[in-house]
């Protein structure tokens, strides 16, 4: 019983040591990890992109493919089942294969850097939104590149690649990205 009392006493004392302001987190600039920020941006892109009409008709799901692995540690997965473009979002983690032509949006994992030319050649002019965090992705023909600048997530976009594929991205988000012209 002495032991229990001692523990309870210190419990009470220490409850006071929780950092004050803990309950009053400023909402203006919360700090988040990089994967959450990237996931939020991807959701925005999916809502703001226009695919050619025939690409989405007769589809039941909007297919989001993480090629080569999940670089978001699961933080993108809560989008599963949500709605975008009047379709249900379906997220899959896949290897690179011809089956990925079914995907409406693909994110290429950094592990596949050595295969980038092959992968970009496959998606060239296909109506699939391509994104990656591989440095130089946009320069080589990818549509959206995630990078970091001054401790903040930085976007690069190759609008011409998207245009040639028949995709258009609303200006509201496109203007926030640095334009890359190869």
């Amino acid at each position, binding site marked *: 019983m002495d*032991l229990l009392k*001692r*523990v309870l006493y*210190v*419990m*009470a*004392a*220490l*409850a006071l*040591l*929780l*950092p*004050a*302001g*803990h*309950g009053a*987190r*400023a*909402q203006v*600039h*919360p*700090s*988040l*990890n*990089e994967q*959450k*920020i990237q*996931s*939020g*941006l991807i*959701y*925005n892109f999916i809502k703001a992109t226009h695919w050619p009409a025939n690409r989405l008709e007769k589809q039941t799901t909007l297919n989001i493919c993480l090629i080569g692995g*999940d670089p978001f*540690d*699961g*933080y993108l*997965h*809560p*989008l*599963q089942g949500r709605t975008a473009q009047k379709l249900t979002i379906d997220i899959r983690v896949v*290897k690179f*294969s011809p089956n990925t032509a079914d995907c409406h949006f693909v994110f290429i994992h950094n*592990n596949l*850097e*050595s*295969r980038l030319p092959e992968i970009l050649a496959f998606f060239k002019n296909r109506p699939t939104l391509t994104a990656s965090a591989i440095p130089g992705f946009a320069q080589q023909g990818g549509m959206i590149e995630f990078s*970091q600048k001054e*401790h*903040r*997530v*930085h*976007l690069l976009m190759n609008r011409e690649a998207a245009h040639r594929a028949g995709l258009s991205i609303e200006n*509201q*988000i496109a203007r*926030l990205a640095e334009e890359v012209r190869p």
Partner: protein
Amino acid sequence: MKLKRHRNHWLRPLQYIAALPLLAFAAPCAGAETLDYLDLPPEQLLQIEVTSVSKRPEKLVSAPAAIYVVTAEDIARSGAQTISDALRHVPGVQVAQADSNSAAVSIRGFNSVLANKLLVMIDGRTVYNPVFGGTFWEIQDVVMEDIDRIEVIRGPGGTLWGANAVNGVINIITRNARQTQGGLVSGGIGNEMSQLTTRYGGAAGDNFYRLYARQFSYDGSRQGDGSGASHDAWSGRRAGFRMDNDRLTVQGDAYRIDTDQLRNDFSLTVPYSVTREQTLEYGGGNLLTRWQDDLDDGSDINVLTYLDYTRRDEPYNFIDNRLTYDLEVQYNFAPTARHEISVGSGYRLLVTNQKNTPDTILMPTDRNDQVFSMFAQDKITLAPDSLYLTLGSKFEHNDFSGFEVQPNARLQWLPDDHQTVWGAISRAVRTPTPLETDVFSVLGAGPAIEAALRGNPDFKSEELTAYEIGYRNQVNAALSFDAAAFYNVYDRLATLALLPNETVNDGVNPPYTLIPIEFRNDMSGRSYGLELAANWKVSPELQLKASYSYMRLMLDATDTAVFPQEGAEDLYPPQQFSVGASWDVTDSLSLNTDAYYVDELKGDDVGDYLRLDMNVEYRINDNVRFNLIGQNLLDSSHREFDAENGLNAGEVQRSIYGKLTWTF
């Protein structure tokens, strides 16, 4: 870096930090902001500062320690069905299967089925048994598909993880429930083992969960002397769950495992010693909660608390019953751009109850042992992006050895963004166990004479001072290698001393002579070694890995040490080498081969051996895959280890195992 000044009241007197409230059960920051990052407008997302101060493990390339990570993919490709088998490629780690149910795993020497210089944890929960001073691998049967990674840190982990991490730490980390959604059923059968595992993961709003159950059974191994099957078969079942949301994780398991073993039963009457077959019953469960929060100023706080109940019923030895309660808090913050500080404190209570047998008595049978600990560490930037000095120490007070200090200093130099050179000096201790301080256990008997191990309450902690250096190079996306070298100085190592004979009149037996033997700290030693590892992705379909370990250990016991304690000098393999190849033959067929060479254990008469394991995987469709796993393919059986008392040592047999896995 624009950070708010850290709060001063975190540095209040030690007595307050020494024991902590159940913070985990205090309501976490209320609010529905769990998944709001998905609904933030892009302008806001691009404004947010990305946190870099956190307990997230440093990018592997730059960590100032000898770390090797066994990934989930490594485990899947190797076909390893137990955690100990998954560790065979790690340089510096000795893995030996002693018999069907006992594995001996250690880092940098001193291997034993109860290796006491290695700390093992699963998701932050210590699975090292403090009574025996070692880890019972037979009761750590985690579902292999649910392991995210196994981090192996060779070298003293005393500062961050506390006592008994003398030669290293093995951290088994399971996947977040977010990553194990959907169902999985896997069943396998082979000539040595069979198992069935089911797991289902789902989501309820922002909370992700999984539930699992598994059952397995293993045959016995074979006796080396050709006398047939060993008495070491084992089987068990386990079930558990895990729930994760943005800040909180709750997980738990319960298990019941039976293992067959042999034991000598002693008496003062003829025949004095009888070898008996027994079945050990293990049972237990745990419940763990982890909570973390990132604060506005870039700092973060983590709280871990768990309850762990274990019961080990060894009919001819004793029954060990223990409830462990643990609470730990860690706070990471960066008061200035050049200092990243971590402070933490912890409290552990072990409530033990033992039932003794005439052969082995642990006194007191009921005990409460407490461990209070505190650690602090500062990573100082001497030159941005290139030179860092980390200084830290852990302070612990425990009921076994009193006050312990385990400091360390690490320097890391990053010549460019793909190379790291590091060096470290550390101190670590291995605290006494009740088997060394409080036991009475008969080791042998004859007519009117008995030899027994008797506890020594003055037994002290074993000590280590370690000097390490390392070099790591991620040459390009396809090739990386890692080298580490160490020089260890040990002091106060455990020895057994023979004391003068005593005559015992216990009123029950006729007077007999007792030969007492007790643990002392009469040995010191030095060891040095080199560990190398390389990884090469030859092509998108072919990956190779290799590792090499070299070690020498020299021990020095004073004259009071009786039994050949320096024998541990001959109980480790001076060299180990391994090579692994993964080949994706087609889109649905993969072939994985692992070869291991382990040098002889001179002291135990265990010869050197070459072991070959293979895993052929055929993916029938997106949801079903079949694995054919072969282990020890090169010979029908070989010995990897020996038993401490001559019993319970079997040879590892060639095994073939077929497994079907269905995910949905």
